């Protein structure tokens, strides 16, 4: 398989009045053609900022300090704003979290959807209209001929999210970035949208990066997962590596804090105590050290190396050092 995207050691900071917030501190992620990967983490872990860096949609006080973002060989971090505009919406589509606020309320849905076609694909209005209707049909909106004349407020939440997906897909991008695409939706609508994304991935052969904090959603859609915490990727591997053989205490914590679907009896949840680190003053060592049950002296002082557990499975935790004490994750998920 061919690599579509290679994010190498990206650092992103925000300059605020209280100082520099180091939101992303050296993230490396790769993505192959036609593959769906997930980025999991809690708020403030840097998952959305990594994607905003990739799309070059950072606020004015944001800055890419170092690293490269190779998309089909081009380094997006160094492209001019004009060249970037050609890629956004055209080669890379993005679905935002909140369908209520990311559509323009004073434009009809048809006008909003034709804009990228006229801008990127040099279509005229009637060609664009035809394509818009086709796309709305694909995402499952009934009677699209009538719907394109309506405004966003006339659509329900699920329908609006479908419009967002249609907009992200209309130029047939090679990469779709979906930032919490179903968080605001009901489970039944969420299931419809996830099925739709899987179907479109097969049909159009595009790659997907799915950002979420819902482990259920990634288990369903993604083949590989990156777990982020405190601005770095703490563990990455295939879905099976992450769910059945996790090697980082933060991943263990995440898996333990949700009810196990295989258990009937009530087992007490084991939350991760404490709160995420303050990225104004990021810790010198491992960002998870002050919430971790297995913290050692070295964790507070030195950033853990990224240990390779098996091919493609990496964990940034000192416990994987050959001299570290052996700690086993009491894996409730492994065959029982």
């Amino acid at each position, binding site marked *: 398989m061919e690599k579509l995207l290679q994010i190498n050691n990206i650092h992103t900071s925000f300059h605020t009045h209280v100082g520099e917030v180091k939101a992303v501190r050296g993230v490396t992620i790769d993505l192959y053609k036609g593959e769906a990967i997930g980025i999991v983490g*809690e*708020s403030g872990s840097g998952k959305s900022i990594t994607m905003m860096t990739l799309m070059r949609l950072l606020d004015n006080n944001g800055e890419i300090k170092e690293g490269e973002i190779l998309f089909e060989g081009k380094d997006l971090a160094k492209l001019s704003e004009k060249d970037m505009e050609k890629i956004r919406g055209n080669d890379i589509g993005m679905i935002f979290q909140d369908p209520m606020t990311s559509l323009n309320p004073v434009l009809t849905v048809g006008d909003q959807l034709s804009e990228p076609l006229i801008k990127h694909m040099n279509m005229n209005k009637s060609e664009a209209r035809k394509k818009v209707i086709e796309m709305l049909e694909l995402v499952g909106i009934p009677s699209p001929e009538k719907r394109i004349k309506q405004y966003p407020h006339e659509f*329900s*939440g*699920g*329908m609006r999210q479908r419009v967002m997906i249609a907009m992200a897909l209309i130029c047939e991008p090679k990469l779709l970035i979906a930032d919490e695409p179903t968080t605001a939706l*009901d*489970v*039944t*609508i*969420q*299931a*419809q949208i*996830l*099925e739709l994304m899987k179907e479109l991935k097969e049909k159009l052969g595009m790659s997907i990066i799915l950002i979420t*904090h*819902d*482990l*259920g*959603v990634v*288990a*369903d859609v993604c083949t590989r997962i990156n777990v982020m915490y405190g601005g770095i990727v703490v563990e990455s591997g295939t*879905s*099976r590596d992450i*769910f*059945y053989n996790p090697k980082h205490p933060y991943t263990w*914590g*995440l*898996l*333990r*804090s*949700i*009810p196990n*679907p*295989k258990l*009937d009896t*009530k087992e*007490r*949840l*084991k*939350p*991760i*105590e404490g*709160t995420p680190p303050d990225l104004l003053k990021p810790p010198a060592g491992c960002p998870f050290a002050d919430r971790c049950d297995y913290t050692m002296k070295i964790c507070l002082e030195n950033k853990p190396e990224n240990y390779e557990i098996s091919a493609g499975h990496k964990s940034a935790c000192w416990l994987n050092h050959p001299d570290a004490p052996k700690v086993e994750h009491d894996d409730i*998920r492994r065959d029982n």
Partner: protein
Amino acid sequence: MEKKDTLIEVKNLSKFFNINKGIFSKTQSYVKAVDDVSFSIKKGETLGLVGESGCGKTTTGRTVLKLYEPTTGEIIYDGKDIAKLNAKEMLPYRRKMQMIFQDPYASLNARMTVGDIISEPIEIHKLMNKIESHERVQYLLNRVGLNPDHASRYPHEFSGGQRQRIGIARALAVQPEFIVCDEPISALDVSIQAQVVNMLEDLQEDLGLTYLFIAHDLSMVKHISKKIGVMYLGKLVEIAESNELYKNPLHPYTKALLSAIPVPDPDMAAENKRIMLEGEIPSPIDPPPGCRFRGRCRYAKPICGEAQPELKDMGGEHMVACHLY
């Protein structure tokens, strides 16, 4: 808790909202937000209420607390029907029944200190003097895992999980017996959700609290609830003991809803056969006669359009409202 008495019993509760109140309007239309719902909760237990947005679960919770005046029906709290009580007669019950809200960012007054927020219900019910109330605030903050010294801070200085703890402390201030938790964890991160759920369970254990737990996250509801009710368009369509409901759902809507939960397990997710529901929840304004789910139901029969199915006991307190049974 040796003997489990029923604390709250809701009988045929309805809440309709009139949507054209203009003096010249000839027709009357109603949003039937809650329509003929009955359930009961035993002391010290938790009833979960699930359903899609717009199904009336939040309205049910608020009507039970009489934050909305019920249209018809009885709310029997500890043997007394509180549905018809006026505001003054209601006051002693207000102390016993409290609520935890969904959005910890919107439900705390930004201009009040945390201490004032928590002590406000104590003042309203005139339960304690200033000194006692101050001590109570310190105790409550400690109880919900916050630093008592933070009583003089303002809500914006706290994270989402901490704010939800403040909301819980406020609800606990007047020593309630019954708490309606309206999606208390859906705005929080996964790791924080577990902290709050564990705390709610501990408080229930220690203080003998009874919960009505409203949520759309079905896996958490299963974890916390003894019994679960499923609502669809203002109607309670199925109610059963939680494990029974997950193992043996009867109503076609419950089946679809359960199969839509994303399973946090890649192998199980690959095997999972989803029952996809077509379309969306219809408008609750003057809903058609018959079963309200029939437009999306794959088993719909002619009778479903004619008669509204009643809740039937299928044995073992498993009730379902469907013409299939």
